[in-house]
């Protein structure tokens, strides 16, 4: 399906806004770098002569601290919003989000396990060996594995005779959320105060751990879904007609479901693994886009990647500015800006939007 001119304008505007916010966000902080300096630092790196003067301190802060963090936020925002959009299309339910099929629950449980039991485990020789290899990234790796496991459990529980039952999958997701929630409760009961604080901050999300290492680790897990999911947009559109209708149009519905689950788990699992739970992005970004420009999945999926990246880049900027030099948890900001915007759009479109 063609994106209409209105949809194209929205996509182009989002791209420009995203670029603007990347530049603004990268320049803002304890050491100020002006937008023009940001641009010339980037151009300098690719070998183009300098437009504006900058000192070495600015150069280093930008490349070592600021830019990886901005890139990480951009990637995670894109991944979360895109997966939300794809899952909403798959479940044909505007309330579906990555949390619903257990991805976040598995991530939370494994993160809490790591935070609480890490100190006990590090005394054992075997774990010391593992930690020697993965070191600093233990939490990220275990979290990613945890999210894959729960999403796999929910997915396989919903399959009968080689077909995926979407309703069973939703119910399975609810069940696994409850189970993980209970286990987290049990573990926090035994946690120390310091561990509790860590857990709480983890569930509020943070981009604080950003480095080029994390960016490049996450990159393939998010880039692949960003490229692949929009290619499924035609099939997702037909799925709105009903599974049977989609199959009459030559869509292999079961293959489609598997692809969407895998790509979403990749993106969300890796996002949660490096940044903790950043709520709200996956649920609301696709909604806002739908209300602005219609339901064509191609537009929704591409637009969600852009708008999700924009939302997280902007939120991260705010998170660092509001209480500078300290920073707020980014999940708090996404919810604080997102909810009023969402409510405003919801009220404005109340009459037309029958799909909410």
């Amino acid at each position, binding site marked *: 399906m063609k994106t209409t001119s209105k949809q194209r304008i929205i996509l182009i505007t989002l791209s420009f806004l995203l670029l603007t916010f990347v530049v603004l966000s990268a320049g803002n902080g304890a050491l100020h770098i002006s937008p023009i300096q940001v641009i010339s630092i980037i151009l300098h790196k690719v070998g183009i002569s300098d437009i504006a003067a900058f000192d070495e301190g600015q150069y280093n802060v930008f490349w070592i601290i600021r830019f990886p963090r901005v890139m990480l936020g951009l990637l995670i925002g894109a991944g979360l919003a895109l997966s939300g959009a794809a899952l909403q299309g798959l479940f044909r339910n505007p309330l579906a989000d990555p949390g619903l099929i257990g991805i976040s629950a598995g991530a939370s449980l494994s993160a809490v396990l790591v935070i609480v039991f890490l100190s006990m485990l590090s005394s054992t020789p075997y774990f010391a060996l593992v930690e020697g290899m993965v070191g600093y990234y233990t939490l990220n790796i275990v979290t990613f594995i945890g999210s894959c496991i729960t999403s796999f459990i929910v997915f396989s529980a919903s399959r009968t005779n080689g077909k995926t039952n979407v309703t069973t999958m939703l119910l399975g997701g609810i069940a696994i959320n409850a189970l993980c929630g209970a286990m987290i409760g049990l573990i926090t009961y035994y946690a120390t105060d310091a561990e509790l604080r860590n857990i709480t901050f983890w569930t509020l999300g943070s981009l604080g751990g950003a480095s080029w290492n994390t960016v490049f680790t996450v990159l393939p897990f998010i880039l692949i879904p960003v490229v692949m999911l929009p290619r499924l947009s035609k099939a997702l559109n037909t799925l709105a007609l009903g599974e049977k209708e989609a*199959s009459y*149009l030559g869509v292999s519905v079961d293959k489609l479901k598997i692809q969407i689950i895998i790509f979403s788990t990749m993106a969300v699992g890796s996002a949660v693994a490096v940044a903790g739970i950043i709520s709200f992005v996956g649920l609301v970004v696709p909604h806002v886009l739908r209300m602005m420009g219609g339901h064509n999945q191609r537009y929704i999926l591409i637009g969600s990647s852009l708008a999700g990246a924009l939302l997280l880049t902007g939120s991260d900027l705010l998170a660092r500015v509001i209480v500078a030099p300290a920073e707020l948890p980014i999940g708090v900001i996404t919810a604080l800006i997102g909810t009023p915007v969402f409510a405003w759009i919801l009220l404005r479109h109340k009459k037309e939007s029958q799909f909410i």
Partner: protein
Amino acid sequence: MLEAVNISVSIGSKKILNAVSMRAKPGELLVIAGPNGAGKSTLLRVLSEKTKLDTGFVSINGEDMYTQDAKQLAKIRAVLAQSYVTGLPFQVEEIVMMGRYPYFKEHPNPEDTHIVQEVLEVLDIAHLSNRVYATLSGGEQQRVQLARVLAQIWINEKDKTEEVNYLFLDEPVSSLDLYHQQVVLQTAKRMAAKGFCVIAVLHDLNLISQYADNVLLLSKGYVEAYGTPEFVFTKERIKYVYGLDVHLIRDPVSEQLLIIPDSTSFKINPTNNTKYYDNNNSINADRALESI
């Protein structure tokens, strides 16, 4: 040519179709008729998609249909199902364009856009093309769905091929007014005249008599009769299959056969209510009626 041989289907222990064989030719509008629960929709499903069969097989253009590639099949057969989602948030034009999805990768070709316009005009919904589907009336939605299905196998006059296309319609006029019933069935007839093979499930015997080339009359999962409407619709057979007395008359202008239910002799007879009871438990039906 579409051919089904010795088809038996059961759901649980209940036999839905019993050794049904049939054949539909290119250029023909074949109607599957019969009382509620006779197995019409099941037969249509067997003919249009991979279904679990107890016995039998379906061949399309001489090949076993159930082993064919879904993407290829989507270009030669389109299906209008009986129930469809009513709350779709897409514009009418977008929905009809979905019928062209099997033909392009990302962006529709000019031909696809042209076909969508043509189909919208044929079904008298061109004026709705920018409306949101969910805001349409039931009858309009039904025509939009039909337009999508037609677009899927539409062939322009200029590029006619040897390959036969198949159109399956499950009660395509169920929520249409008198005028649009004619629009839809005229279109179906036109598709048949183009060399398509059109197979429809219809309930209205008079519409069948007006449009069908052949009728396959089903009753309790068996083929009761097959042939032209003139041949199939006899007073005795309708009495036997539907449990209803009718008058057969001819329209003085068109000479068309008309089937008029006899309301003076009509009474509710539970043993003939084939939808809920088969012969084996008609006793239960009697009991159920007594208890009311």
